[in-house]
């Protein structure tokens, strides 16, 4: 018996090639702004002790975020986890549930509030008034015909868009071959 073949699409980075330039974040901002979504980057270039790569939603098949969302703003769809920004109440349950730190609560400046006391150059100061935040996560640039903008702009080809057609090949087969090869080599040496 084989499992149904439908697997979520997702974008992932190759840390060996990523140079941490954050062009993907700029493209993500631009794409979400163009598509009328909350204009903030949905992937964050993360620097760790041993390397750098952008971190974003893995579009988990059995996604904890969609399971905990109390209002149905995060939903299982055909091939990814959809986020309905207009429904989100900013409860941050998904932020707590996500094992990858790939969903965070973010807010845009509210047009109805006078921010004149907090000029553009001082945005790092928190607003006295606060703002309604909503969940932010990679939506694979849905609505754009060109596919994920980050993958398109990456100057070193570090970001890869993986869909169910090539998922086996890209993620497991080559690694499995390397593992088997090294095991066989070791086994041969030991006999």
């Amino acid at each position, binding site marked *: 018996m084989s499992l149904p073949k439908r697997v979520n699409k997702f974008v992932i980075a190759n840390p*060996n*090639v*990523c*140079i*941490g*330039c*954050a*062009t993907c*974040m*700029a*493209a*993500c*901002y*631009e794409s979400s*702004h163009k598509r009328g979504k909350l*204009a*903030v*980057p949905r992937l*964050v270039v993360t*620097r760790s*002790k*041993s*390397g*750098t790569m952008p971190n974003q939603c893995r579009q988990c098949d059995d996604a904890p975020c969609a399971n905990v969302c109390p209002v149905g703003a995060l939903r299982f769809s055909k091939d990814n986890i959809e986020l309905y920004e207009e429904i989100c109440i900013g409860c941050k349950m998904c932020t707590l549930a996500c094992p990858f730190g790939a969903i965070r609560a973010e807010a845009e400046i509210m047009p109805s509030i006078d*921010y*004149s006391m907090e*000029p*553009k*150059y*001082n*945005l*790092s*100061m928190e607003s006295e008034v606060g703002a309604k935040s909503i969940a932010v996560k990679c939506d694979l640039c849905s609505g754009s015909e060109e596919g994920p903008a980050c993958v398109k702009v990456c100057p*070193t080809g570090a970001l890869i868009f993986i869909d169910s057609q090539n998922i086996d090949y890209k993620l497991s087969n080559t690694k499995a071959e390397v593992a088997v090869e090294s095991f066989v080599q070791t086994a041969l040496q030991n006999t």
Partner: protein
Amino acid sequence: MLRGIERGAKMIVIDPKETDMAKKADIFIQIPVGYNIPLINAMINHIIQNDLYDKDFVEKHAHGFEYVKYAVADFTPERVEKETGIPASKVIEAAEMYAKAGTAAICYTMGITQFTDGTSNVFSLSNLGVITGNLGKKGGGVNPLRGQNNVQGACDMAALPTVLPNGPVTDSAVREHVESIWGYELNPNPGYPLTKVPHEIEEGKIKLLYVFGENPVMSDPWTDHFVEAVAELETFIVQDIFLTETAQKADVVIPAATWSEKDGTFLNTSRRLQLISKAINPSEGLVSDWKVICNIAQRIGLKGFDFYKAEEIWNEVRKVNPAFFGGLTYDRIKKLDGISWPCPDENHPGTPVLYEGGISMLPDGKFKLVPVIYADDKKKRAALEQKLVDDLNIPSDYPVGSGALSEKVNEAYPCLFTTGRKVYHYHTGTMTRECKPLEMGADIMGPAIEVSVDIAEARDLEENCYAVVENKRGKIAAKVKVNPDLHHGTIFTTFHYAEADGNELCNAEDSDPLSGMNPLKMTIAAIRRISEEEFMQVRNETDMHMHPSEQYRTARR
């Protein structure tokens, strides 16, 4: 570089910060800020002592091997280990990897040049390149990676106080050639380097300053000093595409077209001349920088500024320096997508690899190995150099280098302070901070003071708390980022943000005796945690200081 690594090349990174590049390196050596010469000298010493140098190349193509051998004798990998804690074995491994590579390139940027011993740092690197025969071949060389697409071009066009586009200003043959084309007699004395400008203004020697395409209020060290100095100018003119922090202090501001709105050429770090054509027309009333300058010159009544298009200026450059640019016509660079100088005539293919065959550009075609020594006190540098000259009987016209720390940490200012860039912002952010995807997208962190783990622990600094960094020149306040990639005892920040500009604290008093460069990459400072109220207060003071125009502060909201 990454493509090279993919093909199996090895990479050594030497940096006080474990950068993204360092994490991909085969060997990473984390030096304290400013510890360049002792480390490179130790590598050279190890290479010489173990006969790993290219004897043939040194013999045929270089002078001064004995000088360098003598100067580096005191520097050993063990000394590096004793002084910095970097294992001697690592220094040896790096030296051997470089020496045995066959072809190896050295790439460096401001972490080499922006010190009081910047020129000597470069001498050391070129010594390393010469003794291993790594000059004049493809994939080798000592390569300064320029921070802008046209730094090389600006230097070639003699935007420096000591040179004309075809050679040193002190050389009468050079001057006569230029005089024959320009039709004016030229002053044979070198001008003031940029770093001396604030001082010379205060001395009353400079009365008019005309700045274009630069934001020195933010990019020059010790902001307070610079701002006070320019206030004493009789006339301060700034020509820029945005109302920068500098422009807000000017008497006259002249707008100009942006890079995408003008025709011309760029000369990049590989000395390659490339043609650019405008993508859009400039807004009503705006013209290119060169046109603005020509207009002013014509109004003064100077002759020779009646250019109609950028190509005509370039053709004059070709006449002024035919040895480098003679063969670089617009038609050819367009057809070949850029040509590297020297290219003396129109049949010359250009020179993508300089010094081919080990032939230098000095009159005798040989390279000079420059002995570089290191002093424990900056005041002793000249005396040590003199001692070296006396010991070895070095001729008086032969260059000698020396280094020392420009400042040492003390009780009041116990931390080393260095500046750098974030990849998504460009310099003082004049352009990139106006770009929403970069400002709001790529740069979600904003201005931050990065501190090493030991500093954070000793001063109770947590991620995202507010802190103020100060020394005798000024203070900046921002959120804290505890960065485990930093060398211990080091504070790092950028100079992209007017609200927390690292250059405010930088040392403008000391300068490199040869180039005049200030130690922008190194000073000392103290850091302490502050409350949000104090943070707001420092921020507002800085804001008023940087943006004195009330009109501007209102408009940007």
